[in-house]
């Protein structure tokens, strides 16, 4: 007998389920819960890592400092703007690409394969690539605009006002294919007869989308909105590599602020306090998502 008799008999379904999930729970506690709790302890301390590790308990001082820190408000505003732009671009690109990929045309298979590609590329390489594209002295974007005669000489497009938009575009370039494929899966559940009937009745493409496709996509759109919000709220690589928070502090998101406090200013305790605010915001969002879905079912 290849399997222990333990598996053969005497285990209820529920016990079997717990057995299968046990590794995950252990993992979640060791790798996530413990660091998060440890992080809370860190946020009550001031940690000096320049000369050995010197911990000083400071209680809630880090959080008090946080309330007075003018960078925090700015960072949350930037993050919020980044999230809005990112969700908008992802939905726009995702729905557009999904509708296209759902149509029948020669070469559809190749188009599907190509559209997915940006998603396979790391956030790091995406950031490097888009940094090169938008570069002031050698970028593709400048090159195209100059060749078309739209600009007279090379200029900087990553300015205080516009840098965040370009980060959002680069981020959406990489992330939108995922949403597009979710939506494509949703579109494939729409019965073909509905389209045919609507076409015979002379319903135009816009109304066909709104009345037939959209109801089938609502759930996917919701999921994508939630996922993109989560991803964007926690995105770090793209900011660090593409703009480094700059120019000035115009693209400093909360995640970048945490990164800067940790590795540039070496304020480990303070960085943990800021992290905690972000963790709280993200957990509230996750809980809201969970509850919203639960209510939808009732």
């Amino acid at each position, binding site marked *: 007998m290849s399997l222990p008799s333990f598996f053969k008999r005497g285990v209820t379904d529920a016990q079997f389920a717990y057995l299968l999930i046990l590794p995950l729970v252990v*993992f979640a506690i060791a790798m996530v819960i413990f660091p998060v709790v440890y992080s809370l302890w860190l946020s009550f301390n001031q940690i000096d890592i320049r000369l050995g590790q010197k911990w000083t308990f400071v209680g809630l001082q880090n959080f008090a400092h946080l309330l007075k820190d003018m960078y925090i408000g700015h960072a949350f505003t930037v993050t919020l703007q980044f999230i809005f732009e990112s969700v908008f671009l992802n939905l726009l690109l995702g729905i557009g690409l999904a509708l296209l990929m759902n149509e029948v045309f020669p070469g559809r298979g190749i188009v599907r394969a190509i559209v997915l590609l940006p998603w396979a590329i790391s956030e790091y390489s995406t950031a490097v690539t888009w940094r090169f594209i938008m570069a002031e002295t050698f970028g593709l974007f400048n090159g195209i605009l100059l060749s078309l005669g739209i600009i007279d000489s090379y200029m900087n497009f990553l300015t205080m006002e516009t840098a965040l938009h370009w980060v959002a575009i680069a981020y959406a370039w990489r992330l939108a294919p995922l949403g597009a494929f979710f939506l494509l*899966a949703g579109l494939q559940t729409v019965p073909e007869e509905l389209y045919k009937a609507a076409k015979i009745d002379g319903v135009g493409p816009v109304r066909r989308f709104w009345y037939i496709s959209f109801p089938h996509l609502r759930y996917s759109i919701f999921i994508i909105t939630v996922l993109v919000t989560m991803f964007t709220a*926690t995105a770090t690589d793209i900011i660090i590599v593409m703009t480094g928070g700059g120019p000035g502090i115009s693209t400093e998101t909360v995640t970048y602020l945490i990164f800067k406090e940790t590795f540039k200013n070496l304020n480990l305790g303070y960085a943990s306090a800021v992290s905690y605010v972000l963790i709280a915001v993200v957990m509230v969002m996750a809980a809201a998502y969970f509850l919203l879905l639960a209510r939808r079912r009732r």
Partner: protein
Amino acid sequence: MERRKGALLVLAIISVIWSLLPIYWLLNMSFMFPAEIFAVPAHLFPQDPTPNNYLRAFGYPTYDPKTGAELTRGGGHSVYITGGLLNSFMIAVPVTLLTIALASPAGYAFGRIGFAHKNKLLFLLIGSRSLPPVSILVPYFLIYFMLGLVGTHLGMILIYLSITVPLITWVLMGFFATLPVETERAARIDGCTRFQAFLKVVLPMARPGIASCTMLAFLISWNEFMFAWILAGGSPAQTIPPALASMFYQWAEIELMSAANTIAIIPPIIIAMIFQKYITQLRIVDPVTVVGA
């Protein structure tokens, strides 16, 4: 009808250009000599293509094509690139295999078995997955430092598992829940235990879902940058993204960076091409339907 077909084709071409142009631009620059990078306006294809940047990335000396004079010595960057690629494989492959081994039974349990506290356990999983990585970097660094896991393959594998396993469990849970129950029931009646039924009946049916999750797990562990940079950057376990980052700071050579980045994105692109057809079969299902909250 013809007009419609034409419009679709135009849209398809625009989508392809949008998706490929940035990748093409990277490829384009990677075949240029340093001087051509700064041509104004930018050249859309290298006028004098050279494999020099790739040769340098892999540690070979390069020569001027006209005079034959040595341009750069060998060595140097190759340590980063080849070492990074090797480490990325050594980390991404075990992570992918372990993720599937851990997450498919768990996804099955969540998707097909009713048990107490399912909701809370699921929230624990989804919640732990949605934490911003940068916010747990500090505790991770200190804990890893104490345990001696900084700059080790094992340390990186553990971190990536903590990212992939909850996510893949969640995705597979939805997938398992949509599979028909009849076959499994028949297997049970024929005397299979629940475990045997899972292994012999349900798992084979779930092949498309598992295939797309294999891709997902590989891509996540291949592409992750932040943890790798902080916890393994500059160490013998450094994966390819931090390897590229350290190059970027030490040698800001655009043509070489382009070549190195092109090399780094080839394996994930191949994986994505292979598994692409499965991803539409991955029905992302309302997790609460499954749990029945």
